[in-house]
């Protein structure tokens, strides 16, 4: 079966989720990946959207984090102040999913501006829930298409902390969660080096070679020796993924 790069990303991310994990998800790829996991190997995954819906079980992929179906299918709907204080900040989230416009070698994210903050070339939407999701979730998964423009040597703005300047950064700042543990791209999977916390290519998607990934990275990418190739999406995964329709 043929599949798109986006489908590969959703599948690869979904596979990293274990049954029963509590996931704080945003719209788009994260929502697709988490719902795919629910539809396949992890039916007990708990989906939390920042709109305050806890345990949402949407049949259709929401276009916005506030779609009505999320509230209708949720175990509980709480206020936005409560979801961020009693639930995220309290440390009840296993995996926080994030995207971004830029990522650096330590998994720090920019979703604020391209160029100077006060005279930006491109004004991006901003941080939203990301800084605290990346701070308080036990792990953070990042999903991002890989190119020298997105995987950059230096962020124009750090909206969200990953591992800062490397090992020890999160402890120094009192960031309780483990930070970015997985970066899923359209080419493969990157994970922080246990020592330095620098993102390292630990898996390539089928049909991708490490050099492709190096070329798509704006810094000298560390690559795991004999980096393995991941499994293609199974027909079951693709069927489940494709049956997740965007809400009309």
């Amino acid at each position: 079966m043929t599949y798109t790069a986006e489908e590969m990303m959703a599948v690869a991310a979904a596979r990293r989720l274990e049954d029963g994990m509590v996931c704080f998800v945003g719209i788009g790829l994260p929502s697709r990946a988490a719902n795919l996991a629910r539809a396949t190997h992890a039916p007990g995954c708990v989906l939390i959207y920042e709109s305050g819906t806890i345990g949402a079980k949407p049949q259709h992929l929401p276009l916005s984090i506030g779609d009505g179906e999320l509230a209708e299918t949720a175990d509980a709907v709480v206020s936005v102040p409560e979801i961020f204080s009693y639930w995220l900040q309290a440390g009840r989230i296993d995996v926080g999913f994030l995207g971004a416009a830029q990522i650096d070698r330590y998994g720090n994210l920019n979703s604020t501006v391209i160029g100077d903050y006060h005279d930006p070339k491109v004004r991006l939407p901003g941080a939203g829930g990301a800084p605290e999701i990346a701070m308080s979730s036990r792990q953070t998964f990042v999903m991002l298409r890989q190119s020298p423009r997105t995987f950059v040597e230096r962020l124009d703005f750090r909206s969200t902390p990953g591992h800062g300047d490397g090992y020890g950064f999160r402890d120094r700042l009192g960031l309780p969660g483990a930070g970015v543990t997985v970066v899923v791209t359209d080419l493969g999977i990157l994970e922080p080096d246990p020592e330095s916390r620098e993102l390292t290519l630990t898996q390539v998607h089928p049909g991708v070679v490490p050099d492709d990934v190096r070329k798509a990275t704006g810094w000298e990418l560390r690559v795991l020796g004999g980096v393995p190739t991941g499994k293609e999406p199974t027909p079951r995964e693709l069927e489940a993924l494709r049956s997740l329709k965007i809400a009309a």
Partner: protein
Amino acid sequence: MADLVPLTEAIAELVRDGDVVALEGFTHLIPHAAGHEVIRQGRRDLTLVRLTPDLVYDQLIGMGCARKLVFSWGGNPGVGSLHRFRDAVENGWPRPLELEEHSHAGMAAAYAAGAANLPFGVLRGYRGTDLAKRTRVALVACPFTGEEVEAVPAIRPDVGIVHAQQADEAGNVQIWGITGVQKEAVLASARSLVTVEEVVPRLELRPGGTVLPSWAITAVALAPGGAHPSYAHGYYDRDNAFYLAWDAISRDRDRFAEWMERHVLQAGVTVP
């Protein structure tokens, strides 16, 4: 006791040039009808407060009503950019827009502090970000443990505006579905307006329903469809097609101006 008044009158009385105004509604129940009336009445120099500016603030900004924006995520959900917001920030068109930028968690804590009449809200946030240097956040030490946590200044708008499903004749309001920060936005504001889908003789408390008593609100105005293109749980769905269409409408200054002229300025209030 909230007065039941026409929307035009409510905006005329409650929203003044230079005010700090919060139109809230987290993707659900975004008070577009109220925002359009603010535009029609030509309010200027507003400080607009809202977690997710969304289309309603893209329109207010594009029409030159705002001098400052306090926000945490300024995109078109599931679509992309807010082009009028970007044009104001990137090119100062139609006028420069001052930004005070937060995270959702920070805005939520600031609204909760405002509703509780506290000068600041406390959270664990902003750590290891450049945002911390660009916004109003400070450290406070726990007087018992010495641990430092973050503080944000309370949000206390001059006017808070939200849209709800129902009010009764006494002006009590019920909201259900995703309620976001609406309660906090109303309770944190010096004056408040709730636009509603319908006025019913008596409120039936719904599962997940939040009731705001009439005496805690300044004014209630009938505005059926007043959340469109956002949605009203139990009344109508989100007009996702319009959110997609807005990308093209808002990308071009002239097309935007023409759309606003036709659909907002000329339209007038479309409620009974």
